[in-house]
């Protein structure tokens, strides 16, 4: 990597309100929880905050509550704690599977739910050391003017690669956000926009406090396509939540990551509800994924492969979830 970290100041607020105030007080600051992605990006010269607001010791952020109203996961819960929670593994399996698929065990012990949901977008031409990027003339996302993935275009195509987001999206999550104007709850999908340069639609001093999931009768699963069995970011990731009544599909929601600049819920799957899941339904799912997934050459694997792999994964886990429930 390229040398030392720049000079920084660490601020340690003891509660959420103090964290928001600190973020406002310190210009060019960032929240830090696990830091597994933030510190690497700082050393690559991709971001250069002057202060880090350490939110890792705020108690409110580190709890998991499960009750009749569903599940509430604090944003500071570590990925490892989420992965080994037995009730989540039972009732919200996609969440467990996604958590277990994130990076390596050391990263999971440090990284948090909020950090994974807000993960910066990634690209072959962006996640490199400063001298690498300089030798390549930098890129649209940082310090440069053109996107090496699509030089004719005007936008950045870096891909969102968080594993938890699709699992939470498929299960209908909402996020609780604390900001200057107090707290609000919005659907998780609303915090993302399709822009590799600025994929988060929340203010810089907004802090995700928790993720809420409604109780669910649907079975869910997450599948991740990557080069190696551990550590790697997804080339494509698919989460499916499928409810079955008798032999008919009662509810279906499919969400993707790794293919676009944001994680998103696949549109058009409502047409599959109310009838048994047939070979034709599975073909329709594959077509929907192939149409809506927009992988670009942001990884060393080809975009075409990632589109096909996303479609095949969606088909495979939907079929498995249906077989499991239709007895």
């Amino acid at each position, binding site marked *: *990597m390229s040398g*030392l*970290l*720049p*000079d*920084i*100041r*660490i601020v340690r607020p003891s509660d959420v309100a103090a964290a928001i105030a600190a973020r406002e007080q310190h210009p060019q600051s960032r929240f830090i929880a696990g*830091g*597994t992605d933030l*510190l*690497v990006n700082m*050393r690559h*010269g991709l971001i*250069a905050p*002057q*202060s*880090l607001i*350490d939110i*890792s010791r705020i108690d409110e952020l580190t709890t998991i509550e499960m009750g009749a109203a569903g599940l509430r996961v604090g944003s500071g819960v570590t990925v*490892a704690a989420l992965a080994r929670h037995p009730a989540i593994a039972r009732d919200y399996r996609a969440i467990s599977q996604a958590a277990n698929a994130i*990076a*390596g*065990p*050391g*990263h999971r*012990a*440090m990284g948090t739910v909020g950090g994974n949901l807000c993960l910066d977008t990634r690209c072959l031409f962006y996640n490199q050391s*400063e*001298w690498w990027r*300089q030798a390549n003339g930098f890129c649209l996302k940082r*310090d440069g003017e053109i996107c090496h993935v699509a030089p004719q275009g005007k936008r950045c195509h870096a891909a969102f690669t968080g594993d938890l987001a699709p699992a939470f999206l498929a299960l209908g999550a909402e996020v609780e956000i604390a900001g200057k104007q107090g707290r609000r709850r919005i659907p998780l999908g609303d915090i993302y926009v399709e822009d590799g340069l600025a994929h988060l639609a929340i203010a810089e001093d907004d802090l995700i406090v928790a993720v809420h999931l409604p109780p669910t009768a649907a079975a869910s699963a997450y599948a991740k396509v990557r080069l190696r*069995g*551990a*550590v790697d970011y997804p080339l494509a990731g698919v989460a499916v939540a499928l409810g079955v009544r008798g032999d008919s599909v009662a509810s279906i929601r499919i969400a993707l990551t790794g293919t676009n600049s944001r994680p998103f819920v696949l549109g058009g799957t409502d047409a599959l509800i109310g009838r048994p899941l047939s070979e034709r339904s599975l073909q329709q799912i594959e077509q929907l994924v192939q149409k809506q997934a927009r992988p670009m050459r942001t990884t060393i694997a080809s975009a075409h492969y990632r589109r096909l792999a996303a479609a095949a994964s969606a088909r495979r886990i939907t079929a498995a979830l249906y077989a499991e429930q239709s007895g």
Partner: protein
Amino acid sequence: MPIESPQLERPQSQKRLLRLKLNGRWREDAVAENQLLVDYLRDVAALTGVKTGCDGGECGACTVLIDDEAVPSCITLAARCDGRAIETIEGLARQGRPTRLQRAFHEKLGAQCGFCTPGMIMAAEGLLRRNPHPTEADVRTALSGNLCRCTGYVKIIESVLVAAETAP
């Protein structure tokens, strides 16, 4: 060659008093807020068994235990470890006598060039404290964040399993 970028007024990293328990002993040091744990351990505490491999959280050579949890020290800020218990490979042996896990690595040829070995052993140590009788799958998962460039994985996994089998 440093890259020229617009000069920003940056705050100087302050030094902060860091108090932590290192290999069983409490100690205090003044550390800069931008110092990484791996650099603190190697350069300040002179524990050079902690290796810098990829230097970016991808290879696991710098793995240490923080409160019994195996984590990469190259993506951890030293200043954020205040009050915590840190253990490195140097903290395992007692009076020069290697632990069962270290002996297993020695006897089962779990080390080749040896560069990944301290990280491998600390990752395995973290696993065995949590789960003294792991399956092979458990071992593979626990070591999945540690790379061995000699590719001696089979012997490494065998070493950990042997250490677990011979545990009292």
